[in-house]
């Protein structure tokens, strides 16, 4: 391994790679020598991140990806093995907030519909993308990682998978599902040296949180409950993913890495 490069020779799939935490994680993985299959539903943005990674001397390809499609997962894992020879790392980052576009976040402290007003369709959409997508991705990656002799799966949950709030209950439920699904998967595939861990970001500045954080009242209240007194950056979360992806964490599985500026310790 080259000094300073912690993922040399490894192959990673990063979902939700077109923006925010996913884009930064894909970039940092590539900087550390990984070959990255970057996937996202947004083709134009995803291709532009891949273009930037390649221009900076990294190795990456883009695949359009609806994480709810089991068929699409199979073809992306197959394409990754065909292009890069193996699969070592899967970073399940794709997710949605479930924000109701009819609610005005600029005047409200909650981004989602309250429980009694939530439709089954809204609930199902959040669960399908945030939780079912992680199940399908993990399921598709396991045979490839068994062929590679092991691997590391990193599932992005949230502090909303640990504590409750006024935000969308479906979002909380989906992130709680990711938290405990990761532990079940960790136990089942530890004998195959496949590690599965969850990452729990707090309030991070990303395109997903921008509508909320651009409301000064929302931003102030969120900063007040964050002991470190700032919002996280995508790089803060990507660095945690790098630790869990690399062999430095080869005895870490079923763990929850909380990166929240101290919010849930309070």
């Amino acid at each position, binding site marked *: 391994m080259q000094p300073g490069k912690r993922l040399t020779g490894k192959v990673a799939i990063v979902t939700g790679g077109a923006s925010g935490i996913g884009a930064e994680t894909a970039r940092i993985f590539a900087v550390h020598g990984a070959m990255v299959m970057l996937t996202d539903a947004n083709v134009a943005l995803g291709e532009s991140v891949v273009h930037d990674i390649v221009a900076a001397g990294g190795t990456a390809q883009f695949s359009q990806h609806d994480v709810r499609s089991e068929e699409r997962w199979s073809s992306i894992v197959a394409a990754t093995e065909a292009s890069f020879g193996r699969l070592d790392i899967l970073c399940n980052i794709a997710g949605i907030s479930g924000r109701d576009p009819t609610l005005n976040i600029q005047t409200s402290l909650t981004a989602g519909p309250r429980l009694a007003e939530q439709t089954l369709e809204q609930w199902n959409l959040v669960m399908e993308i945030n939780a079912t997508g992680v199940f399908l991705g993990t399921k598709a990656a396991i045979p490839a990682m068994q062929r590679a002799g092991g691997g590391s799966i990193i599932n992005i949950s949230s502090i909303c998978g640990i504590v409750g709030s006024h935000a969308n209950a479906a979002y909380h439920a989906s992130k709680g599902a990711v938290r405990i699904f990761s532990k079940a998967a*960790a136990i089942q595939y530890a004998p195959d040296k496949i590690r599965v861990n969850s990452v729990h970001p707090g309030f991070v500045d990303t395109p997903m949180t921008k509508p909320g954080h651009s409301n000064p009242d929302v931003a102030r209240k969120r900063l007040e409950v964050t002991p470190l007194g700032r919002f996280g950056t995508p790089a803060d979360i990507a660095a945690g993913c790098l630790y869990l992806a690399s062999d430095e964490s080869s005895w870490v599985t079923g*763990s*929850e890495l909380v990166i929240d500026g101290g919010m849930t310790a309070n």
Partner: protein
Amino acid sequence: MRLKGKVAIITGGAHGMGEAEARLFAKEGAAVVIADVLQKEGEAVAADISAGQGRATFMTTDVTSELAWDKLIATTIATYGKLDILVNNAGISGSSVGDELALAGWERLMAVNATSVFLGTTRAAAVMAKSGGGSIVNISSIMGFIGGADSHPGYSASKGAVRILTKTAAVRFGPSGVRVNSVHPGFLPPMLNNTNADGRASKVAVTPLRRLGEVMDVAYGVLYLASDEASFVTGTELVIDGGYIAQ
């Protein structure tokens, strides 16, 4: 180098996990003060690091003594100009204190494993706050989460104390830029010194990744929390246990 220009104190740095952390930190560019009661072993580690182009010094330190902490921190700042990182790694096992139900054993475990962390965390945080921040890493254990049939009640209590003391300190010192996190190792050979081969095999059998931990497994986690890569991480529990408490 991930700790370039940083100054770190590592307690219990004369052997085992602490020694691995000291060597890794020095390799990553930190100046390291090894604090331990084991003078001969600690001086040897510091000399070895210095011979290999790293920066390290040793200070005989009883972590249960408030005076010793004052001296350790003052000497570190006199020698290296500041303090960025403290790893509270010093600790003793339940089996080292004998009778599990004797008060003396409980008090000894609490003093070495928990009171030391209180003293070190509060004194170091005060100094770090003045210089704009820092990172404190407290070594707890999986026994800070779960009850183990073989675990001394005082050992478990001391590690649980470290876990929640860490969160209190994180909330209190966060606004000063001081991060405080706990690390929770599972079954490692240094902790199983008094365990025979059958005992070790039984620990491997209950660890999902089917091996005991190695000191470097813990040292890399401590490095992550100590470095600026974890600058938004505080009050967090990093479990490094091969999956043991996930089941």
